[in-house]
């Protein structure tokens, strides 16, 4: 039994040692990418280009904020890309059907947005309930819904493309293309979702319970935590985040098809993992996920701007970075 030691006032050395250096790895990677990018091309470090990168990272980033909750809670959601495609298709069909009636175009778009947010909640709840009440592995359930949503959008589009009515596009377009205070709307949305997500994860009971469950579900259950309810809610949050991404995505192209959102689940999970969240659950940070999503988008941008590597190799570079990130994490978990 050790005797309590007297603690001296912390020196700056001790303070430096207390900085969680390993958690800062993703941030260091981001800084490195920016330095490399600006050395390789003069157009890289312009505000136009950087906002472009941020805008494109918003879809994956918002979905990945939801994914952070799911993964920290010890789960996984593979269905997000298909869910995004299905919600996009359903939203466009509904808005087209409502247009021309008694409702103004703006009203139609608002109804569409409301429907998508509600459907996202329901789709997430379906995943969550199948996993917690049905006691089926998250991997299996969301692999199943991945197939279901993908085939539903293909069915809705009859194998082709669902296009938004032209008059509605004009009304809805600014949601993706306009700026507020010089910052594009999707970037605002990403920032708001990230801040709300961070508060929920780090400052509320719910967030603490998610981390406790991902760390050890049995301990959480014996501590009188409603494990099934909390885990289901992580999938509901994931569904809501997918819906928000869809609300921003539909005005960008004004269409949806069977190939919408393909491999988004991989990029979203990659953003979470690059950001330092443990794939086995229990710990992680929203800001890490944000950095991860921006990094993925930056890699594509740097490859586009320079001709050193073909842009078709984007996936290869991203893959290597994902594996590298997990390799760096190993030091933290390997004991």
């Amino acid at each position, binding site marked *: *039994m*050790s005797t*309590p030691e007297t603690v001296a006032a912390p020196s700056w050395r001790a303070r430096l040692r207390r900085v969680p250096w390993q958690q800062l790895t993703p941030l260091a990677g981001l800084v490195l990418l920016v330095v490399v990018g600006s050395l390789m091309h003069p157009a890289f470090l312009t505000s136009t280009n950087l906002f472009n990168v941020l805008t494109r990272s918003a879809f994956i980033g918002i979905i990945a904020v939801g994914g952070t909750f799911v993964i920290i809670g010890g789960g996984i959601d593979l269905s997000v890309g298909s869910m995004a495609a299905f919600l996009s298709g359903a939203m466009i069909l509904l808005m087209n059907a409502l247009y021309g009636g008694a409702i103004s175009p703006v009203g139609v778009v608002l109804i569409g947005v409301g429907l998508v947010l509600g459907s996202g909640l329901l789709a997430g709840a379906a995943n969550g309930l199948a996993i917690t009440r049905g006691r089926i592995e998250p991997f299996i359930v969301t692999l199943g819904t991945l197939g279901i949503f993908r085939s539903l959008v293909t069915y809705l589009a009859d194998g082709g493309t669902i296009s938004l009515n032209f008059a509605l596009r004009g009304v809805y377009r600014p949601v993706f293309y306009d700026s507020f205070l010089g910052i594009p709307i999707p970037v605002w949305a990403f920032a708001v979702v990230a801040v709300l997500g961070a*508060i929920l994860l780090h400052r*509320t009971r719910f967030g603490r319970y998610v*981390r406790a469950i991902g760390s*050890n579900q049995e301990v959480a259950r*014996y501590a009188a935590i409603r494990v099934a309810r909390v885990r289901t809610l992580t999938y509901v949050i994931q569904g809501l985040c997918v819906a928000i991404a869809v609300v921003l995505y539909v005005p960008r192209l004004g269409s949806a098809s069977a190939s919408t959102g393909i491999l988004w689940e991989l990029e979203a999970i990659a953003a979470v993992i690059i950001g330092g969240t443990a794939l086995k659950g229990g710990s992680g940070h929203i800001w890490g996920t944000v950095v991860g999503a921006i990094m993925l988008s930056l890699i594509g941008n740097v490859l586009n701007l320079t001709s050193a590597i073909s842009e078709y190799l984007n996936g290869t570079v991203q893959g290597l970075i994902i594996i590298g990130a997990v390799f760096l994490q190993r030091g933290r978990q390997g004991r």
Partner: protein
Amino acid sequence: MAHEPILSGIGLSKSFGPIEVLHAVDVDVRPGEVHALVGENGAGKSTLMKLLSGYHQPNAGQVVLDGRPVRFPDSNAAEAAGVVLIHQELNLVPDLTVEENVFLGREPHRFGLVDRGAARRATAELLATLRTQVPVTRRVRELSVSQAQMVEIAKAVSREVRVLCMDEPTDVLTGRETEVLFDLVRRLTADGVAILYVSHKLDEIMAIADRVTILRDGHKIGTFDVADLTPAEMARRMVGRELADMYPPKPAVPDDAPVALEVDELDVPGFVRGASLRVRRGEVLGVAGLVGAGRTELFEGALGLRPAHGSVRKDGRPVRWRHPEDAKLDRVAYLTEDRKAKGLLLSKNLRENVVLQSLERFARPFVRLHAEQQALERSAKEFDVRVARLDVEAAALSGGNQQKIVLAKLMLTEPDVVILDEPTRGIDIGTKRQIYFYVGELLARGVAVVLISSELPEILGLAHRVVVMHDGAITGTLDGAGLDEETVMAYATGLRRDPPPSTLESPRVHA
């Protein structure tokens, strides 16, 4: 008998980070002897054992084998030299069979393929000598904890073992299995094997050990012949002070004390049939029985931790707890017997652990880290958690301190019925006494306490009444005063059984 030691450690020291946990300890093990290591939790017993068997490297000092200095870079090197450690946490692969586990990594081969027949025969012979009836083709996952322990021992014995290190081997064994283990130890020592034996159970050490080395706070107090010591002297040297009475005084339960928790005809499918009991405010109800009798399952069923049917009343009011949260809201708390798997988030810090069950008090709506930290500091003080720093992971604490944190977590929910399941398992004698006296404080506050325990002395020392279970049923409800271990064991083994009380008659409570 040769008296040159097989294995010894000279001036062994070990630090983890800035904290030195073992200070220049000498120890030696001779062939054919059982050498016990005793000390409170955190005294350095397990660390010393791991230094000798290659799991840790000493920061200073020397390990000597057969008179020559050696260095075991890892446990495999130690095992190759005949020094084998059996872990406190079992070290078997759950999805492999008994036979595959025993020969894991050194399977007998024939024509280039694993010779399963030979491995099975050899394993069956080994288990027969251990008098353990476990089918060699069964998966370890399907074994009971005690069966798994015997397989672990078989695995160690199957090697050319010269020094066998055992870390609390009887913690999960029943009385009969402990006897079998002791027989085996005697046969091994007769063959010249040296045994290094860590245990909290001083009566076991009196029964089986030849010499004992006592550690306190990482220092060696001394090595003694067991025959020269009484258990009381051993305990005194371990804690460095006179141990007064182990148990607090047992105040009488007032005649008018209301019944706090009442369970009637509870069935837990597969585990418990028709269990009825009641506990009053200010009373300790002991629950005795052998491992596997269904004691844990009875209360987990009543509290909504596993499916059950039957009626439960809290303060006379019928309740239906479907989830542990329901029981928590009715101010009932359950201390799990499995501290590491169900009690603590080992990779989280003490603050998050201690407030986990009562987080609603610290989050309105946002968590207040400062209030949580204050709660941790108050709890650490109240429960005498002795650590250098409070900002560490729960895994870094010794078993006794971990148990205090779990208990503190429970008590932050301010329960008035507390169910303690094996509250002193794997804890040193000083901490045990603190927990017993804490139970005494709870009684004074009018809390009702249920004490599930396999240690009869603590049941007899604390409980006003004792419920004994055998094979899923309550075989007797006994008055704690004047009760002896033999009577409880007769009920626990099913030799005696009271007729079930008629439902109309309310059992008389002895004040």
